[in-house]
């Protein structure tokens, strides 16, 4: 049995930053548990640039961004257990894990930080007709094959879903000599960043077909083609629009889901929208001493925001150990019109300023975001455009006697 002050599950950017911040804020024994053979999480396979512009004022690739934190962890006395898979966590903060050298291990933690990241939605979640030939991959597993294992999944590619990983892989596969025929997106907007559409699709004349989906997969042992279709307003495929496209590879980039299997056992309150835990401004869940940050809490598009959030979680885990998180109130932060979710969900300590993170439900152009405290307008912010694919923040001053804060977005007419 190992005893630590703070145990961090997951050694991706969230876990790394959370561990560093917990240590720097006074937690003495900090441990990172990572199932992979190395630290860095998903960043290890994201070899494209675009990381760290806000954090370091520099445009880094994924491995370079991770390295900045890994080096700091290596220079500190933070303990790292690699090749260690956490199997179960309990409400009393006992962690059960298995390690390739040491076998079965239990860890008892004063505070726990969940930083397990997310996983990709697979074909099972989509319900596409047809056999199960090889050649159908999630975009992230294709990224792992190409960037980490030097293996090309195929030559003629169709991508379903316009999430960032799919867009990045469109360019990557093109550079590796594949023909990327198209990207089909069910909605009339992309879940990916504008810059990725510009530099990964537009640059290579790869068509992005909005309101299109894949309805059938052809081929028995190896994928031979797919049937694509236009969808109506109810997202139902239109029969007349069916079209056969020959391909040997179908990449799915249809969304990410926080990896919360471990969290289930903790029985903390979950947010059905984000599929992550409900947290307050300290990033503490409904179970005291259990914190969450990064993609396990809600799916982020920018790693910089992951690091920032992890910093908050780590600092507060250290505070929690010193008994200095005082819950003096409970202000609910609500998602009003056109807001898909906000983070945090509650304000519980005596702070007077707060950054609220939020996502909108649809593209709004130009937009105004209003924040209300018990029905009275606190703040308004004008933006050129609000995209559902991009997380935004708004900073507010919290009135002392507030009971409910609500965020709304609307078109700026």
């Amino acid at each position, binding site marked *: 049995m190992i005893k630590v002050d703070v145990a961090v599950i997951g050694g991706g950017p969230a876990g790394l930053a959370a561990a560093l911040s917990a240590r720097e804020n006074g937690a003495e024994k900090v441990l990172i548990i990572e199932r992979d053979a190395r630290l860095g999480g998903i960043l290890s396979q994201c*070899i494209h640039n675009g990381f760290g512009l*806000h954090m370091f004022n520099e*445009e880094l690739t994924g491995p370079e961004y991770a390295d900045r934190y890994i080096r700091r962890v290596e220079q500190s006395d933070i303990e790292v257990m690699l090749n260690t898979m956490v199997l179960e966590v309990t409400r009393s903060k006992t962690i059960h894990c298995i390690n390739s050298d040491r076998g079965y291990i239990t860890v008892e933690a004063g505070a726990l930080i969940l930083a397990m990241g997310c996983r990709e939605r697979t074909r099972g979640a989509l319900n596409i007709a047809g056999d199960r030939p090889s050649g159908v991959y999630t975009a992230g597993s294709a990224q792992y094959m190409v*960037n*980490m294992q030097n293996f090309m999944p195929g030559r003629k590619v169709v991508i379903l879903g316009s999430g960032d990983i799919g867009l990045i892989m469109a360019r990557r596969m093109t550079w590796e000599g594949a023909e990327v025929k198209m990207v089909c997106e069910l909605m009339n907007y992309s879940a990916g*960043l504008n*810059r990725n*559409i510009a530099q990964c699709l537009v640059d290579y004349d790869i068509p992005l077909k909005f309101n299109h989906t894949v309805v059938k997969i052809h081929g028995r042992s190896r994928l031979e083609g797919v049937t694509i279709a236009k969808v109506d307003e109810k997202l139902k495929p239109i029969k007349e629009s069916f079209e056969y496209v020959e391909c040997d590879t179908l990449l799915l980039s249809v969304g990410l889901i926080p990896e919360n299997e471990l969290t289930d056992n903790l029985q903390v309150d979950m947010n059905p929208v984000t599929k992550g835990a409900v947290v307050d401004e300290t990033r503490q869940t409904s179970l005291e001493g259990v914190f969450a940050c990064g993609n396990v809490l809600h799916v982020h598009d920018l790693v910089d925001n992951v690091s920032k959030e992890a910093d908050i979680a780590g600092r507060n885990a250290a505070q929690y150990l010193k008994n200095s998180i005082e819950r003096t109130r409970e202000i609910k932060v609500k998602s009003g019109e056109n807001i898909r979710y906000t983070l945090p969900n509650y304000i519980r300590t005596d702070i007077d300023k707060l950054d609220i993170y939020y996502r909108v439900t649809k593209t709004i152009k130009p937009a105004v975001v209003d924040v209300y405290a018990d029905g009275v307008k606190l703040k308004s912010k004008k933006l*050129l455009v609000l995209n559902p694919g*991009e997380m935004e923040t708004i900073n507010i001053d919290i009135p002392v006697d507030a009971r409910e804060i609500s965020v709304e977005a609307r078109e700026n007419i």
Partner: protein
Amino acid sequence: MKKEMEMTCIVCPVGCVMHAEMDGENIQVTGNGCKRGYTYAVNEMTNPTRMVTSSVLVKGGDMPLVSVKTKEAVPKGKIDEIVSLIKQAEVKAPVNIGDVIIKNAAGTNVDVIATRNVG
């Protein structure tokens, strides 16, 4: 000569949608969220450039590939050539972040450097 372009700034993930107009030497840009966007728009009108990120085979390392990038953005027209240079390249472990893998790639004066440590 007059030229107009609608473009998405790719300098940072905000991805501002900008409009640029060129009249002889004079270039006007709207929609950019910051100065870097202005510079990007001017470059897009005159000499568009991109970063190339890929990976190179490693011999004797704990991983089969080392990820690499062009140290700076390179002219768009040179991308194909650089991509194939990267494909032909091979290095020996150990490799450290920042190590030069290909010097002056395709005559651009830009080096291709490692972005991962491979031991």
